[in-house]
Each structure stands twice: as C-alpha cells, then as structure tokens.
C-alpha cells in the first residue's frame, strides 16, 4: 500500500499550551534552549512551546502554520550539528511528551517492544528494559498494558535495546529522527533496524500512524499522503543510490521502500515524531576484550581479518590509535585512578576492542576460531585485557569512552589562550575496501601538517573519529581545509560525509560533496511535498 491518510487528534485550545514568549524571557529562563551540544547559536526567536500531548502539539503546529511562523523541534538537544537550534520563529520542545506507553509482545515477530513518547530518554529505556520496571505503566488503567507488563516482568530472559549511541541522555524521538548509531551498529545495525513503527505529525497538524511493513512506495517510487480533509500530497522518492556505509547524510531512499524509513534519519524535515515503537533483543552474556597490537596498521589488519571471519560474531569493533594510547598513558601518569585500568603495556602500539558471547560458567568454552583468526593477523590473545563480570563490562566501556573526555580537556586548556579554538573531528565512513586508503590519507596528511591528532571509534564500520587538537588559530584554519578534503575523498570512495551525527545546520555544506545538484533537488522535492512552505526545521539539511 502506498497511500496513507492522517487523522486529527482531539482538539485543544492553543492558548492552553505551556509556553514562554519573548526572546529575553526565553534567554533568561531557558538559556539551554538556545543551543545544542554543537554550541551553535543563531538569531533570536520569540516563542518556546512545551506541548504535553499530540492535541497540544497539533494546536501549536496549526497556529504556527496559520501565522506562517517557522517551527524548530527539540528533543533532548544532544545533537552535534545544530539541528534543534532555531534560526527564528518558534521552538517546540517535546520534553513534556515523555511517557512510556506500553511494553508488549509482538507474537508474529516473536519479540518484545516498547512504545514510548518522543522525549523518553535512551538511558531510561535501557534501565526499564533491563530492570523490567516501568513506573509509567504501573499506574496504567488499561488492562492490556497491565497484562503485558506482568508478562514481561515474568520473563527470565534479560532484554536490551541494541542501538547504543554514546550519548544516552538523547531522546528516543531524537535518536529516531537522526537514525543514531553506536558501537553495536557493527553487529545490530543503526536505530533504523530497531524501529517497528512511529506516529508522526505533519504540518497539517494531523498524525500519520505508520507501523513498519504496511506502507511501501509504488513501483514508480511514489507515496500518496491524504489528510483528513481529503487533500492529497504526492511524494516522489529520490532515485539516488545510498552509500554502502553507515550514513546519516541525506534522506533515505530505496526502491519499494517502507514509508517509516523516509522519516527515520530525516532530522525532522517532514514531520514531528510523537511516539515510537522499538524492538528489544534477548541479551547474551558477554566478555569484553581489548586486544593490543604493535601498530595502527596491525590493528587495521586485525579488523579486516576479524570481520571477514564468518565464524565470529562480534558485537562491535572499535579502535584506539597509537596516538590515542599515548594520550591515555599521559592520563595514567597523572592519575591512574581516573583511567581505572591497569597500566597500558609498554608494547601496546594500538588497541582493538570487541565483545564476544561468553558464559563464565561454561566448562570448556571453545574460542579456537578467535584464536586462529587473531593469530593469522599476527596478534595474540595473551596481549589483551578481558572481563565479563557486570562491573568489568562497565569498566571496559568507560575506558572505551574515556578519550573524547581527555580531548575536550586538552582543548579547554588551549581555549584559555585562543578562545576561538575548537577540536576538529571527522564523522566519515567509507566502504570496507577503502579502510586502509582512508587511514593512509588521514595519517600522511595530518602528520605532514604536523598536527596533534588521535583516531578512535567505529573501525568495524570503517567509521573513525579522527580528532585533531589545534594548538593555535593558524592550525585550526589549516585543519578545516584538510578536513574538507577528507570529506571530499570519503565521498569519492562511495562513503558518507556524516556517518552518525547528521547534517543539521552545521554540515549542510558537506551534502554537495556526496550528492549531485539533481539529487539534492530530488530531496528538496520530498521536503516541499510534505512541508510546502518550508516551515518545519528551517535551515536543516538545506542551507537557508
């Protein structure tokens, strides 16, 4: 079916919606709402709304459209590209739409799901899924909700939500809008793969209820959206090829595509996601392993070996470059307790992190495949740290996330001398066969430039965060030019210019490196079909 009809939520009085009016008041009472984690700020805006439900949201949308006022949508404002930073008009914060609506078993899919309003935080979803305690649902009057909660509570198996972006205070709505990914994307895919349905409000103020697997584009690539009044909005899906990598740059498009996928990762370009159904997965006990290698190149070789060995099922494959290890050694020299791990071995030139399924009480665990595979790459399991107890898993995870914190610290020190300084960070992914090419490019260019840089992150997806810490403004300028070249090259390799953080406002200029003018026009056509006056999230994706 490629036709879908939206419906109007129960009416409510626009004047009842919680709001702050006037830029001065907003700045005074809600200073955090002027920016997100990119720290980008834009022009003044005069309206800030906190709708509590779909009815209130609908009243706001209809009134803003009537007055021709642009709307920017904010989830938890953890974005890194300024997506929820309003250039003008109104900011709609979904913070009040933060209830979990159900945990339920989908019998055909044989999986447990959670239905939650947009502002529920990922960290809370994780906690509730694991502890099987849902404060919102315990108060429910709905017999179905109560019964399903009881059944879930009675399950012996532990469940989890596989997407694991680093910033767990993000909202579920925001993470779906940006198709967030994390380390585990290597095995389990990005957020997209775990979304089973969404409710999304269009600029008509009506809601589309889109379960996955119901609405597909027509053979010629169209969807037709009707509103409650019978108006028709035909949408033509772009015909470009998506990169074969992790990607959050540009709208998702594929032949015979599911309508839900058009909204996932579109950064709120087409509508406001009000609630989401996500799937949970049975959790298996794990052992976290940090394998040390003599050099960066050896580590990348190991990565290629491990991921091509079909016998192995690794949850993720992450990387610390040799320069990253040196920075961590510095931290250990300062305060070993802060790092929380034993002294990094002298011989460790780089490190590769992964998790394997592991039952601690199994009598004769068989890891011959892993032993063979690592040895064939010239790396040995004796040169590793490993841990499987919950406290060890937490300790290893913290170690994996330690580096960005150190980089921020180094830079804030330098900012005292050069206030305009910031770190340069890449978010580029390339197809498997170009991992080494991209690595050589980074290394030769950055070393030649004489920069202080480290690489870490999602090496299994050929998606490294390469962070340069400029020492002065001149280095920053040179670095910016170099990073633009990196993006160009990644796109030429068939990769993505924004693998994880989205485009928002900050990266809209990179889009042209990946897509032709015609392809960007096709994206624009989708946008105007659903938001004819370009009032929703202005400045996102398409530079204003």
């Amino acid at each position, binding site marked *: 079916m490629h036709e879908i009809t939206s419906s109007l939520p129960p009416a409510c009085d626009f004047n009842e919606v919680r709001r702050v009016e006037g830029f001065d008041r907003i700045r005074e009472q809600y200073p955090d709402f002027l920016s997100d984690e990119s720290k980008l700020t834009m022009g003044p805006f005069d309206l800030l709304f906190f709708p509590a439900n779909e009815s209130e949201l609908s009243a706001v949308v209809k009134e803003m459209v009537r007055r021709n006022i642009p709307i920017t949508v904010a989830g938890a404002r953890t974005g890194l590209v300024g997506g929820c930073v309003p250039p003008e008009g109104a900011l709609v914060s979904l913070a009040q739409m933060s209830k979990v609506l159900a945990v339920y078993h989908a019998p055909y899919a044989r999986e447990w799901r959670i239905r939650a309003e947009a502002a529920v935080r990922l960290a809370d979803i994780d906690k509730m899924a694991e502890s099987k305690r849902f404060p919102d649902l315990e108060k429910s009057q709905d017999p179905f909700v109560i019964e399903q909660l009881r059944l879930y509570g009675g399950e012996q198996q532990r469940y989890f939500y596989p997407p694991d972006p680093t910033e767990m205070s993000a909202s579920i709505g925001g993470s779906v809008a940006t198709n967030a990914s994390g380390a585990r994307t290597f095995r389990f895919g990005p957020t997209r793969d775990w979304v089973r349905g969404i409710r999304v409000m269009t600029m008509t103020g009506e809601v589309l209820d889109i379960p996955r697997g119901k609405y597909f584009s027509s053979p010629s690539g169209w969807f037709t959206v009707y509103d409650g009044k019978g108006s028709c909005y035909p949408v033509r899906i772009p015909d470009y090829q998506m990169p074969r990598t992790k990607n959050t740059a540009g709208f998702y498009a594929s032949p015979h595509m599911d309508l839900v996928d058009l909204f996932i990762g579109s950064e709120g370009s087409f509508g406001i996601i009000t609630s989401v159904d996500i799937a949970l997965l049975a959790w298996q006990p794990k052992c976290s392993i940090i394998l040390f290698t003599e050099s960066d190149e050896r580590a990348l070789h190991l990565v290629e070996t491990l991921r091509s060995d079909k016998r192995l099922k690794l949850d993720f494959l992450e990387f610390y470059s040799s320069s990253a290890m040196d920075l961590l050694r510095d931290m250990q020299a300062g305060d070993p307790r802060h790092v929380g791990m034993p002294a990094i071995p002298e011989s460790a030139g780089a490190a590769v992190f992964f998790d394997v399924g592991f039952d601690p*009480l199994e009598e004769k665990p068989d890891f011959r495949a892993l032993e063979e595979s690592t040895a064939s790459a010239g790396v*040995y399991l004796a040169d590793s*740290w490993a841990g499987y107890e919950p406290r060890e898993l937490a300790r290893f995870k913290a170690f994996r996330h330690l580096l960005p914190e150190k980089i921020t610290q180094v830079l804030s020190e330098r900012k005292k001398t050069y206030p305009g300084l910031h770190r340069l960070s890449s978010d580029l992914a390339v197809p498997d066969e170009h991992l080494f090419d991209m690595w050589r490019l980074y290394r030769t260019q950055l070393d030649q430039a004489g920069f202080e840089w480290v690489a870490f992150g999602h090496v299994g997806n050929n998606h490294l965060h390469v962070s340069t810490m400029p020492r002065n403004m001149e280095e920053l300028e040179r670095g910016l030019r170099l990073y633009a070249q990196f993006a160009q090259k990644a796109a030429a390799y068939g990769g993505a210019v924004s693998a994880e953080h989205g485009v928002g406002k900050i990266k809209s200029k990179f889009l042209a490196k990946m897509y032709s003018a015609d392809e960007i026009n096709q994206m624009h056509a989708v946008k105007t079909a659903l938001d004819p006056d370009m009032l929703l999230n202005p400045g996102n994706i398409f530079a204003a």
Partner: protein
Amino acid sequence: MEIVVAVKQVPEISEVKINRETGTLIREGVASILNPFCEYALDHAVRLKAANPEIRITALSMGPPQARAALLRALELGADRAILVCDRKFAGADTWATALTLSEAIHQFVPGYKLILVGKQAIDGDTAQVGPELAEMLSLPQISYGIEAELTAGLKRIRVKREIESGYQIMEARLPALVSFSKGEVIRRAPSFKEILGARAKQIKVADASELGLAEKEVGLSGSHTHVVKIFPPSQKVHGRMLTGLEAGEAGREICLFLKDRGIPTDSDMRYRT
C-alpha cells in the same frame, strides 16, 4: 613452596540494603564477585610468586556450587589451582565453623603449605574473624591488616607492612604463617583473554564434608557457636559541611568561625601542636 589463598564469593554491594522484616541482606539482582579483600590477598600471592617462581598458589573457598565463579576469577588472576569445599551440611556456618572447615581442607589438600593469605574481611559480613580463627586452629603466627609483603631469610620468614591506627608497622613472622590483607592493587588487575580461557582449562577440585572427615555437628549451622540476631545499618554520621570555591585563606577563616561557633578552641586560643 605452597601458598593457600582463602577466598569468598560475595554479592557486589556498594551500598548495603537490608530487608527490614527478616533482618537479612538483600541479594536479589546483585551480581556476585570475588570479595575485594580476598582479591588483595591474591594480588600479594601473585607478587610473591613473581619474585619467587617456585611458588604454587592454591585458591580455596567454602561455598555453594556458584562459588566456582569466584575460584575461576582467582585462577584467571594467577592461582595455579583451586579447591571448592561444598556441601549442604556447611550451610549456615558461622565464622568458627567456616574456619574449622577451611583448616581441615588445608590439612587434607595442601598439607605442605608455608603461607596462608586471606582478606581482612568479607564485605558482606564484615566480621574479620575467619582469618584469625584459622590461624589459631592451625597454631600459626598471624599478621593482620597487611598492605605489603615480602619473603625473607631464604623463604623462611615473611615481612609484612601493616596498617595500624597511628601509622604503619613492619612485622616479621617465621613460616608457616597466616597474613590478612587490607590493601592490594589500587586498580583491579585485568587478566588477558588467554588467562580467562586458561582458567577454564584447569580442574577445580570439589570436596564435600565426608572427604574432610568432619562430623555433622562440627560444620554448618550445627557447628556454629554464634548466630546472627539482627543486622542493621550503623546510624548515619552527621554530615560535615563542605567548603568549595573559596580561596585558601577565606576557607580557613570559615572553618575557624565554624569551630568557634561550637565552642571548639581554635588557633587564636591554642598553638598548633605537631
């Protein structure tokens, strides 16, 4: 040279939660770990072995079948072998019955031991009695609250730095001896995956009451001379006041006023004594 490290599996508790009705520890949903002080004892055994490679380390535990996990951790960290004494009859043992059972196991399975290392206490019961009782039962010299240890006199003596309230003490004992430890590695060791797999290739010997030749009335609840009447959290100390964001001089004045307000003599009344 044989070293025995007695270890216990405990719930991983940072904050003790107590069931008010039964007065027992709530262990539900809490992961089990090797008691941190036992891990310190093991740290020291491993260090002694690094200096004296002929040492063989045996990890010994009395506990339910699940305590195997704690012994596996001990093997991963460097114990050469592990023994679990495990029998329903041991259930409900107090510190005396536990020490008696362990002492029998040591007699039987590691008769040539030269050193017994223990943690100062287990974090679930906090009695700090099993180590000293074990030393008494085996008629061994004992040094408690150790933080450093070294073997001297051609492996005939052990020299231990121990914590006391006013500082440190260095004591020596002839071997065989028992030492309890209150500190080890500041940061937990991380075994390699090879060591984790290696631990699983080793056999853990399991022994029951009959193998130890102990009578039923000597072990478990019936062999216990004490029983727990009540467990309760100690009353909370009144929190002090934290001064932050002040210059040193300013902070000093604040502290001085705070003490004066409470009638405590301060610098102006009393010269600082060193």
